[in-house]
């Protein structure tokens, strides 16, 4: 249930819904089975101006805030998480440029995202640096008019499909967390190649690849802000993108609930439809309650971010943690309501649970985020 949407927000939701019904749902089973990247669907999303929501007007965007991005992400997730992730991850790739880029960088790159012409990706994670982001080993050494990058990024969403990559590399390894910088690297740059595509449990239509930098030359002007700002930019980026992960979780959970509800109204056992059984009703009710609660928290976090508040880490972490844990439980329960049929690939719910799992892990595992929340409370009080 959504209330109090403005006319424009309602238009956004309607467009997404049409894309979900007409383009995503008919193809999602096949995309999942065969790991097919949703290129055409993303093109449609681009043509519908939905990528413009990430970007402010002065860079050919229509963006008013993270809230609208969350609406889109939630609605697309109702169709398929891979599509929503490809959309959101592209926004994630551009966010550093938006938050800390120079005017030239913004003018050069942001319109490309806005039009949907190019996708982006964010490259931070490495094999030795997951939750411990300061453990990254990719280096960037200034040599004349370029930085030379060496290292390997792992599990990068949109890897290989994106044209524009925001990469975190160590410019001063001896400074630890203060020694990382953010760079814009374009596909096709000398020394930039891709590893294999990962074979994943869920979110299978999304492209997840290694990014390999072997003496990769990056123009000096492509550093975002200045040396040493890397992690600050990354943290600011994640603060703003986290509610969208929460939105993804809400969307999948919503979809699972809809399927379970419809099924329970048709499936008959013991001479009655199972939706008449109290056990099922209670499960459905609990699912609905938790989805609604998560949705409220996600929307609230998004609105607080949009209001310009600087201290958003705690709230955005809460939204992501609550929603993703909720989505795992709801999709699990949805399968349970389907019973044996829920376990079969012929029915859509098993995929939803496989998809939902990642939301508890990426963009900060829920364990790390709980630390973030606790530390923030310890520092600033409960408020």
């Amino acid at each position, binding site marked *: 249930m959504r209330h109090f949407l403005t*006319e*424009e927000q309602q*238009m*956004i939701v*309607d*467009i997404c819904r*049409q*894309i979900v019904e*007409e*383009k995503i749902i008919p193809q999602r089973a096949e995309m999942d089975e065969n790991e097919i990247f949703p290129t055409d669907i993303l093109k*449609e999303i681009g*043509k*519908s*101006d*939905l990528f*413009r*929501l990430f970007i402010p007007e002065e860079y050919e965007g*229509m963006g008013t805030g993270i809230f609208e991005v969350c609406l889109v992400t939630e609605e697309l997730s109702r169709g398929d998480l891979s599509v929503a992730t490809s959309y959101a991850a592209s926004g994630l790739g551009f966010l550093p440029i938006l938050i800390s880029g120079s005017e030239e960088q913004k003018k050069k790159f942001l319109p490309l995202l806005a039009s949907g012409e190019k996708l982006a990706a964010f490259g931070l994670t490495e094999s030795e640096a997951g939750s411990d982001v300061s453990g990254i080993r990719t280096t960037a050494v200034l040599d004349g008019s370029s930085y030379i990058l060496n290292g390997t990024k792992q599990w990068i969403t949109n890897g290989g499909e994106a044209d524009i990559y925001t990469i975190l590399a160590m410019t001063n390894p001896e400074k630890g967390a203060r020694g990382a910088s953010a760079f814009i690297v374009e596909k096709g740059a000398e020394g930039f190649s891709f590893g294999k595509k990962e074979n994943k449990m869920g979110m299978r239509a999304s492209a997840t690849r290694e990014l390999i930098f072997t003496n990769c030359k990056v123009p000096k002007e492509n550093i975002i802000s200045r040396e040493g700002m890397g992690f600050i930019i990354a943290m600011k980026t994640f603060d703003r993108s986290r509610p969208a992960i929460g939105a993804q979780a809400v969307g999948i959970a919503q979809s699972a609930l809809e399927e379970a509800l419809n099924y329970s109204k048709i499936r008959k056992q013991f001479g009655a439809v199972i939706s008449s059984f109290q056990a099922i009703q209670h499960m459905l009710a609990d699912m609905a309650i938790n989805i609604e609660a998560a949705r409220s928290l996600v929307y609230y976090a998004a609105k607080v971010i949009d209001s310009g508040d600087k201290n958003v880490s705690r709230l955005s972490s809460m939204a992501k943690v609550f929603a993703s844990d909720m989505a795992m439980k709801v999709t699990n329960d949805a399968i349970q309501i389907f019973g044996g049929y829920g376990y079969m690939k012929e029915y859509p719910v098993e995929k939803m649970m496989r998809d939902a799992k990642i939301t508890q892990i990426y963009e900060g595992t829920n364990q790390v985020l709980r630390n973030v929340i606790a530390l923030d409370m310890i520092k600033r009080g409960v408020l």
Partner: protein
Amino acid sequence: MVKIKIIVCIKQVPGSTEIKIDPETNTLVREGAGNTINPFDSYAVEEGVRIKEMLASKDSSVESDTDVEVITISMGPPQSEEALRETISVGADRAILLSDRAFAGADTWATANTLARAVKKIGSCRLIIFGKQTLDGDTGQVGPEFANRLGIPFIGYVSQILEISKNKIKAKRLMEDRYETIEVRLPAAISVAKDINVPRVPSLRGKMKAKKVDIPVWDMKYLEVCEDEVGLSGSFTQVIKIFTPQIKHEVKIIGGSSEEQAGELYHKLKELNVV
């Protein structure tokens, strides 16, 4: 600067054709609410917008894309305006509603007449696109009758436009057992079938424009038509009766396990000499 105008004729039809006649009131009982743009017309609008995009990019005789305009028109009651707004949200430049009490009761001939008048009034129209048929009337007659009124060629069932320029169009049309490639000089009219394209989803800017845009309403007086050329009076055919078809039917349900069902079906097919 001369504008190249592409006209797309659309119709708003009932949202669902799942209907029956209530025997008592002799009215339609319709499942599913509301009205919608005739499905084939969505393909027509999409094709019009694509042609505009193509002409704007490639054809050297067209300088900038303000040269090409896609105008959607519809003859119908006032609520048809909704359907016209939808066409703006997917890329039409402007829309015109042809509405007047006198237009009511029109058969395909009177409809074609009215549309032809409107197109004459708009002027300089190079290409007029129709959807293959409507969901409610489904005769597919308005296109050819319209073309005849204006003395222009008509290519029906277009499944692909191979070439289009300011003066000519080359299109592939689907006949029963073959595709024919036909070329004619413009102005011309075409009707399109479903395999021609995949209609786009509205864009956000499109929807916002559709909300605000002014859609003029042209009535009988504005179109300068006489009463006996339009509406019921201008029609040569008339419905004298409507009724629901009686389908008397007995179905034999084959029961049992899937093995048994397959088996019995196999035997039936054998009996019918199909196997």
